[in-house]
């Protein structure tokens, strides 16, 4: 293993309140570093709000507005327009929200902001449940996963935020993971160069909520990508799909390291594998059917 030089400006300070080994903090660190200091963050109640710190402390070197849980995209819209009215069009507005605040209670205003194509980067730190309140299910929790509110395993499937946002035909959507850091950094730089509503969906393996070892966050994030459970992709204007990862191992490898799936029967594992395979085939069709890119897809 080689250490990569870190020449990014530190926008997330040491001493923050994340759990030891947390991938949320690591992901936010790289997102904020790539965005730079001319940025204002909107952080609703979530793990990230805890990491941002209690008054009068702040772990972030940029201004933070903490809205109510369901209002991130609306708050980001108002903030964006106020900055525009002051001629501050270069200042980035970034939302750092969890999956509960995005897939569930915040979806209405996110849809509205996307319809207006408001100019901000919405980063969903998706740990597949309400982890800040002790691991309850959200509509992002995968089928069969144990949570505090689905003790027998979640009955319904995970909602696809990417497809919902693609249906809004926003300029740019991407998935990324701290387990594939180069891809994540490239995508944030690309997002920074674009305007309009941009969505970056980051998978955040939650050590406590998923039942992982303290040092297993990044490895689990990589297993999610390699098994095809969390494909790395980009969608431009809702119609140009591209894949940045390959499916190279069985889903069982990913499930096996997580306590939330320990109760699964072989039949349930097989059914989940079928879903991943079907989803992967659909993605490949979407990539093939995509019109040619308007511009080079490099940042």
């Amino acid at each position, binding site marked *: 293993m080689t250490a990569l030089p870190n020449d990014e400006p530190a926008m997330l300070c040491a001493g923050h309140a994340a759990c030891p080994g947390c991938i949320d903090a690591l992901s936010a660190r790289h997102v904020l570093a790539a965005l730079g*200091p*001319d*940025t*204002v963050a*909107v952080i609703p109640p979530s793990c990230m*709000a*805890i990491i*941002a*710190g*209690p*008054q009068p*402390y*702040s772990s*972030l*070197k*940029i*201004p*933070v*507005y*903490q*809205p*109510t849980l*369901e*209002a991130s*995209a*609306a*708050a*980001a*819209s*108002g*903030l964006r*327009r*106020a*900055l*525009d*009215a*002051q001629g501050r069009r270069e*200042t980035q507005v970034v939302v750092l929200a969890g999956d509960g605040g995005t897939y569930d209670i915040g979806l*209405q*205003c996110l*849809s*509205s*902001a996307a*319809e*207006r194509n408001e100019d901000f980067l919405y980063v969903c730190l998706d740990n597949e449940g309400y982890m800040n309140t002790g691991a309850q299910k959200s509509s992002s929790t995968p089928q069969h996963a144990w949570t505090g509110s689905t003790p027998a395993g979640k009955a319904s499937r995970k909602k696809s935020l990417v497809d919902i946002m693609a249906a809004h035909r926003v300029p740019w959507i991407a998935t990324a993971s701290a387990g594939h850091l180069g891809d994540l950094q490239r995508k944030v730089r690309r997002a920074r160069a674009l305007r309009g509503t941009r969505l970056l969906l980051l998978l955040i393996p939650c050590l406590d909520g998923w039942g992982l070892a303290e040092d297993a966050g990044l490895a689990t994030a990589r297993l999610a990508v390699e098994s095809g459970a969390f494909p790395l992709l980009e969608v431009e204007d809702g119609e140009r799909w591209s894949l940045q990862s390959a499916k190279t191992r069985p889903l069982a490898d990913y499930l096996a390291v997580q306590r939330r799936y320990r109760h699964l029967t072989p039949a349930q594992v097989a059914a989940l594998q079928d879903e991943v395979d079907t989803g992967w085939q659909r993605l490949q069709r979407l990539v093939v059917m995509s019109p040619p890119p308007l511009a080079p897809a490099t940042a």
Partner: protein
Amino acid sequence: MNVRDAGATGDVPAGAPVLLTGNHAVAWAARLARPRVVPVYPITPQTPVLELLTEFQAAGTFDAEILTVESEHSVMSACIPASLAGVRVFTATASQGLLLMHELLHYAAGARAPIVMANVNRTVASPWAFWPDQTDSLAQRDTGWIQYYVESAQEALDTVLQAFRVAEQALLPALVNLDAFYVSHALEPVRVPAQDLVDAWLPPFDPPQRLDPAHPSSWGNVVTQAMYQRHRRALEDTMARVPALAAAADREWAALTGRAWGVVERYRCDGARSVVLALGSLCGTAREAVDLLRAEGQAVGLVKLRLFRPLPVAALRAALAGVHDVLVLDRDHSPGLGGVLHQEIRGALYGLPDAPRVHGLLAGVGGVDVPVRHLAEALRGVAQAKPRNEPAWL
């Protein structure tokens, strides 16, 4: 005359009376105040405010970022950080819309965001109805917003402009309430002040702190118990200054325009033994009832409460000094209690030596008509009546 066209082209003669509805008077006030961000959502009977502002913008006479979001909840969610970023913010709503904002009303006051919002008082569902009723805004009394209630289109225009001055001085949000249809849709002669006058009245909004990457600071982070209480006490201290700020703003506005409305208005109260006390358009009916009884030689008057939050207790006590009976009208309903204003006035006068007796009357709840003669009869009989705890309905 074609009032809509006059409004949209922006060519109303400054200072001369034109016919405007209360809603259009509000839109004119908002335009003159030069807010930079206006998130807004349509709802009957507020919609003409939204429509005239978007017409102004389309005509190039209103330079604001208008956000047509998907709900009133998102309206207020957008208003707060826009205000905290350091720009003037205006919006308007009514009834269900105000109720949907409830969580954010608390949030705005806590954030000390001096947003000004017009609310057209309309019945609250269920069942559905569209009539004048002030339960919507009175139910927001504990949210930390300054609240005005107005009686006419002119007062609506003047009060929106006064509210911006007071809100920005206090760093508190302000709500200007106008009754559905009686004020929102009635055409009345209104004097629209010149832009120069309003520009001098409202200098550009320049708050001491703002969300700015050049000077990073945050709002909303978790606080300790002691910090929370300190914040509430600071809010209370500011609220305590608002009656004086509102009175000063009204005096200065009068010096510029010749129009004063008072924080509390006394109408024909000299020597009055019985007075009627009300909010908003019911005061128009009450004035006629008072005139009727004065013509009969009865010592009656009207006390109009224009500023409801903060409740101007000292001004109320002064206005009611020497009065024997107060008849408080409530065009609102708090089930299990009766009238909100009735309880507020009882609280304001409690413990005062020789306090007037306070009678409550639920009048016009749900928008039912309040005939002048019915009100006159109630006021005439109040000196012989015994104040009751249970609600009385007109």
